[in-house]
């Protein structure tokens, strides 16, 4: 969305959370953190707590919603799910991410071959 320039890391984490919620459906914080770790094949070893600022931010922007529920082993947990605005944002972000990463990749390649 125009006018929003999150830092790269913060932005990518938000993007990953959104993507996770899109593919997995409603998830609690632990589940999301686990999923991101698994997908990145544990390459992204963050403190799991760092996803909470990201969740708060997404909640505030109404891209995700939250609700208390019961987890698979009968534990009270807060479940997050992506909203329609969130899906739209995700599609938009994904496109621009691909574009940017494409551009960066090309630039890096040309610079490399030019040397």
């Amino acid at each position, binding site marked *: 969305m125009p006018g929003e320039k999150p830092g790269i890391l913060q932005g990518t984490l938000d993007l990953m959370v959104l993507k996770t919620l899109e593919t997995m459906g409603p998830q609690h914080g632990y589940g999301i953190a686990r999923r991101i770790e698994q997908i990145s094949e544990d390459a992204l070893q963050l403190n799991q707590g760092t996803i909470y600022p990201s969740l*708060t931010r997404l909640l505030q922007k109404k891209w995700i919603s939250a609700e208390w529920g019961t987890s698979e082993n009968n534990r009270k947990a807060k479940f997050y799910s992506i909203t329609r605005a969130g899906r739209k944002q995700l599609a938009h972000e994904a496109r621009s991410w691909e574009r940017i990463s494409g551009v960066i990749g090309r630039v890096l390649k040309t610079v490399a071959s030019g040397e």
Partner: protein
Amino acid sequence: MMGWLWMLVSRIRGWLWGRSANEDFARELASHLEMLTQENVRRGMAPEEARRAARVRLGGMTQIGEQHREMQTVPFLETLAQDIRYGLRTLRKSPGFTSVAVLTLALGIGANSAIFSVFDGVMLASLPVERPQELQKIREEARTRTSGRFSYLEFQRLRDGTHVSGGMAAMSRVVDADLRVDGEREQELAKMQLVSGEYFVVLGVYPALGRMLTPDDDLTMDGHPVAVISSSYWQRRFGGAMDVVGKGITLNGAHLTIVGVGPRKFTGVWMEEPVDVWVPLMMQTDVRYAQHYSASGDDTKPWIPQEGIRWLDIILRAKPGEEATTAAASVNSVYQQWVARKAETIGDSEERKLFLQRKLVLDPFSRGSSSVRREFGGPLFVLMGMVGLVLLIACANIANLLLARGEARQREIAVRLSIGAGRFRLIRQLLVESLLLSGMAAALGLLVAQWSSGLLVRLASGIGGGPPPIRAGLDAPVLLFTSGLAVATGILFGLAPALRMTRVELSAALKARAFQVHGNSRISLTKMLVASQVALSLLLVVGAGLFGRSLRNLMHVDSGFDRQHLLTVRIDTKSAGYSKAELSTIYQRLVERVETVPGVRSVAIAACGLSDQCYNFEDGLQIEGYEAHAGEQILVQGNIVGPKYFSTVGMQLVEGRDFSELDTEKTPIVAIVNEALVGRYFAGRSAVGQRFGSGKYDRQIIGVVRDSRVSSIQEAPVPMAYYFLGQGIPPTEAIEVRTVADPHWSEAEVRKAAAEVDPNLPIRSVMAVSDQVRDNLTEERLVAFLTSAFGGLALGLACFGLYGVMSYAVARRTSELGIRIALGASARQLLWGVLLESLALVGLGVAVGLPAVFAASRFLSRMLYGLSPNDPLTISGATLILVAVAVLAAFIPARRAMRVDPMVALRYE
């Protein structure tokens, strides 16, 4: 964009109701930690170990919580709330400063809001009708002076011959009428207006009760005995009773039925003449709507079919822009046909050409019409400017107080800066303090305004009585204006001190007793403020002086007759419906009876009172021997007076003879004219013996009297002709009574005597003419009063400012003064030193103020009577007053300087 907005909304929500959200988050984290622990246990760790490892994986719980809380709030609002809390605490800690500052500002803001509420009511408020901006009034543009009104036939031609989508309506003037409600004995005065059937439709005004008048109510002459009353009259007279519709009333002898009540707030389109009752135009003869006196006294023929009697204003509804242009063209095409036809009857080609140039123009009418607006427009602008200046002076004062306070808070601010407060944050906090001050002052100022705008309106309406002509109150625009003012003043007086106070040299300020912080720049800022206060005050004092002297001039204008010891009794023989024979005896008995009242010297009857305009500019008057140039219309005001009139009112006959009993209905009509008429139409020649008339020269001038001026004392007298009552015996409106002593003493007796002659004769008022003269100067008196009040206020504030600065300067220099005394300076020298310093400030202010005075006073020239806006006496007087007051203000601190005890002063350090 939406995302950002939602974020702000949710943050504000979080800021307001953050507590429960934080608990919620803590629970969420706990549940997360639990899940991690479980996972670790599943992997085979011991429970203790599992929990520890989970903590590590999750990261610092405290930091996460902190971060979360921060994300839930709006930092700006959070700190603003802190600033406000802190500001309130600081202000509470120095109640003296706070109350002085708030009171000063409240006066300034209150005065501004009060004047603005009147300004808004008079100059800006729109009519309470549908889409007022679409209303237009038709005006005839002609080279010669015309009444500006139209005859019914003209209205009919325009209305029926054009197509204006929004419609066209006509209305009469608003006049007094005798109203009696069926079943009640008492008769009372009501304001009546005649309107065409389309009037309410065009305005888009809908009834509060019953119905309004419609075009069907205005078809046949005297055939529609219906009336609509205004909402305010309904409340006032009938207490808002629901059964008022269907009630019968007698209005000037005509019996009408009330069919509806107008909407709340709507009292017609003339601000100062709120209408009580509306009647269809067609009822003109029945309700005896007649303003017109002619020498023959014959105006009883219906006006509707008369081309020559122009008595209506015409309004229409057309959107500004294209629609209005089309409407104007369409109206003109009809009008031009008539002009062309009429022009054929004009012999003189030059005159015909001029006549053909007449056309109609549309004037915007969204705010209705108001003589108050024309009259008070200029003065109101001046008053707005003046209160603005007063407020500036008040701001300067508070800025000075803040600076002085800043000195005392220097250490506090230095400490805060040194422990890491940002300068911006400090400035903001100081500004919040100023805004708190100005906000409190504005709240208090609204109270001041509420009270004083009511007072203003009462003052402005004079002694006339009746509902005030001006709508002024604390409505939305006024509240908006006041809050805008609060913010503007808060920043105005707060910003400079805030900037200055936060520029501190930390090391110096933190020492226990800094001798002098930051050189003389602070002093020079305060001195600049004082000098500008002096300059602004000079402007205001000169303004007050000019208006005061102008009023004095007006009060002493030669009115052309002896206005002391003179009473005017307003009667209404017309609505009583007397025959000519009855009138003759009533006049005689009135004069005889009133003359028996103790203290009355002589009595005379007149068609219109001294201070009333006699509204008959007779059309088509010609004066023998006077060659009117092309297109010129001879305009003469007429009055019809009984025997002894001129001696009774004290108007001097300068030439010829007075009327006598020998002038009767059977002898040729004679007239006495005033000097203005002689001057204009008989330049240099003697007027006595000359003839004039309308159509034929049938009136002979037998005498000349001095000009008289009451109703508009500041304007040049108009040409007047007086005719003799004995030659026509028309209905009249006034009895002039010359008394021996104070006319007020005879008022009641005279009224009683006049009422005794015929109980059916309505007596409208009994008033001393000198009071009327004063009443007619209401505007000037009000302006003079207000400007002097503002001038005085400004002077007081400036004086207070100077006093504050000088005593502060003396206090700061106590040790220096002590040393000088110790070194042998005399008390006198010290006194002069301080006095000269303040005089220098005043001199600087005057030097800046005088050119401003000369520049600004030009705008006043049209409002002044008998003196130049640069009147040297006023300006030098004002300067002198200012200097005197300033010296007085500086004297107390100067004396204190003189009494400094060197020992005390030196030990003080």
